[in-house]
């Protein structure tokens, strides 16, 4: 048993939780929610343990760094971030309504590590540019931001599909809007911290705080999309489907920022790891 096997177990637990959320959605009542939430918390506990385990293990084999540095670790941590954001903000925003999609998303991210060819799962040593105290703060803030934007994305999809299906009352539309907006507020703050910490780190490592490399530029593009969202919402009072579209475009930008710039041939740059 190692941390990669534990992650597979976590994926299964998240899938069970997602199924349980679907079941609860059919006849939602307070006591029923405890089952999928309980399973989600169980999965999250195991997931957190696997991260800690991997972290400790890296020191045991003489490498020594947080599990945030290669492709495998980033997928696993992204999944953790989504579930973490879900569990933390459920009490404030009633996110459990979206539990099925969100937990399925978390399971899916872990599942992708098995499906993507050439995914290196071993703990790899850090190249000199990554050996920095900034690594933890920069990576964590960025992934928590991505996670918040992912929740907003699910909410946006729901807003669009259920609006089209016609079973969206004015009240539930406002609630969806509310969740989407507040998740983007959280994500925007985290992303701003992520970009700034990335710049501070770049200044220390490379002597310039901004170089417009594809990763940096796309993180700014993502930031710009959500800035448009906030200005449209706060100042112009946009609501409903129009905002949902921006939230969805924003998450597409997140995917390009996280995955696209590293793996698509049209982009190249300094940042092509993690």
């Amino acid at each position, binding site marked *: 048993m190692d941390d990669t096997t534990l992650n597979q177990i976590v994926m299964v637990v998240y899938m069970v939780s997602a199924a349980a959320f679907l079941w609860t959605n059919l006849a*939602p009542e307070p006591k029923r929610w405890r089952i999928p939430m309980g399973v989600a918390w169980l999965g999250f506990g195991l997931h957190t343990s696997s991260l800690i385990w991997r972290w400790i293990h890296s020191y045991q*084999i*003489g490498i020594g760094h947080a599990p945030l540095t290669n492709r495998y670790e980033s997928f696993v941590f992204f999944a953790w971030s989504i579930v973490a954001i879900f569990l933390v*903000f459920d*009490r*404030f*925003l*009633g996110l459990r*309504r979206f539990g099925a999609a969100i937990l399925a998303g978390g399971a899916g991210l872990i599942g992708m590590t098995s499906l993507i060819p050439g995914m290196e799962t071993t703990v*790899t*040593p850090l*190249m*000199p*540019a990554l*050996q*920095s105290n900034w690594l933890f703060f920069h990576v964590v803030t960025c992934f928590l931001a991505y996670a918040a934007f992912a929740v907003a994305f699910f909410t946006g999809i729901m807003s669009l599909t259920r609006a089209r299906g016609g079973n969206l009352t004015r009240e539930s539309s406002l*609630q969806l809007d509310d969740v989407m907006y*507040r998740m983007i*507020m*959280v994500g*925007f*703050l985290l992303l*701003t*911290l992520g970009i*700034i910490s990335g*710049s*501070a780190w770049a*200044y*220390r*490592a*490379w*002597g*310039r*705080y*901004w170089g*417009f*490399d*594809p990763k940096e*530029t*796309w993180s*700014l*593009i993502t930031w*710009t*999309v959500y*800035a*448009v969202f906030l*200005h*449209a919402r706060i*100042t*112009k009072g946009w609501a409903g489907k129009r905002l949902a579209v921006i939230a969805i475009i924003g998450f597409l930008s997140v995917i390009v920022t996280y995955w696209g*710039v590293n793996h698509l041939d*049209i*982009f*190249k*740059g300094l940042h092509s790891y993690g």
Partner: protein
Amino acid sequence: MKSDQTHHPLIVFLSSTRLTIILLILLGIASIAGTVVIQRGTSEESHIQHVYSPGTIRLLDAIGAFDMYHSPFYLGLLIALALNLIVCTLRRLPRDVSLRRRLTSEGKPDPRGIARFGFYVTHAGFLTILAGAMLSGLTGVEGMLWMLPGETAETFTTLRGDTLAIGQTVRCDAFRIDMYENDPGMVREYRTDLTLTDSQGRSAQHVLRVNGPVSAGGFMLYQASYHVAGIEYFEVGVRSKDGTATSYRVNEGESFEFVPTEGTTVSVAVEQFVSDFQRLDDGRVVSRSDEYANPAALLSIREGSADARKQWVFLNFPNFHGASGPDAAYVFSFDRIQPRFGTGIQISRDPGSIFVWLGSVLLICGLMLSFFMDPSKRFRNPSPA
């Protein structure tokens, strides 16, 4: 602003959030274009000409797409965004001041007032970042110091071509590239040992690493790169018929000796080295290029008192043994070239950076004020679903 001016349609438009959104969208599209179009700063001209047709190059050049982020269009968008923000702020300020006065009339600050104040902090931060970036662009300098151990530098040439005095004498004492023991292909550390001497002759030693910059004069030094400056040593291998193999370190012009299992001492000298072996029609050997495409060494082999025989060994062809037959008592191979590495230090100064950090702090504080101080925006328990 005079009240009769504030409702002029042009002012209203220039201060509007609609303009902000338009500008942000244009900025996003321009930024995306810069990641898709090859940028001159990070690519060779030949690569650009390889990818794009001459007509496309002319078109993209006309709109500044090859240096998108310094193009007039991009900078113009940023300036327009700043102006939009300034005009909007000036229009909104009188209303917010009087609102604030009304809200704090009971002597206690109203959270709504504090939250509205967040707008000013956020956007002051944004403007400060833009100002810092502009200052960096206008007054920042950057150059490279390529040094071998033992070399010193007192000046450097900036990217713009000016030569600046560092203010201290930088001496490279040593440079090493260390690999990971368990992952030999991976670099663990680039490290330059420096001695900095000021104008009064006081010296201090520093270690320069990636993520560990060193300040020198008014500048910062960064461990940025390395270069190959010649060869530290070769390794020539000898494998005897019984299979035992030994590697010997030697330089061009030097020799080593070994004693084969049977026979007298053999002396091997490295007479010549070429990095890219090519034999011309007249039999001469030359290096086709400066690249290490086909490194080869000419060995001069003397057994006891016999005449020397010569043999070329090739780094890329370890099984090519020239005229030696399968019964040879020993065969030679070219095992390794150890390059001599010199350090590549980036030296730069960026007066704008301090404003970028200051603006960043303001931006974060402003966001926190706006998002988490406003009761109407505050997170609250959801109504029963």
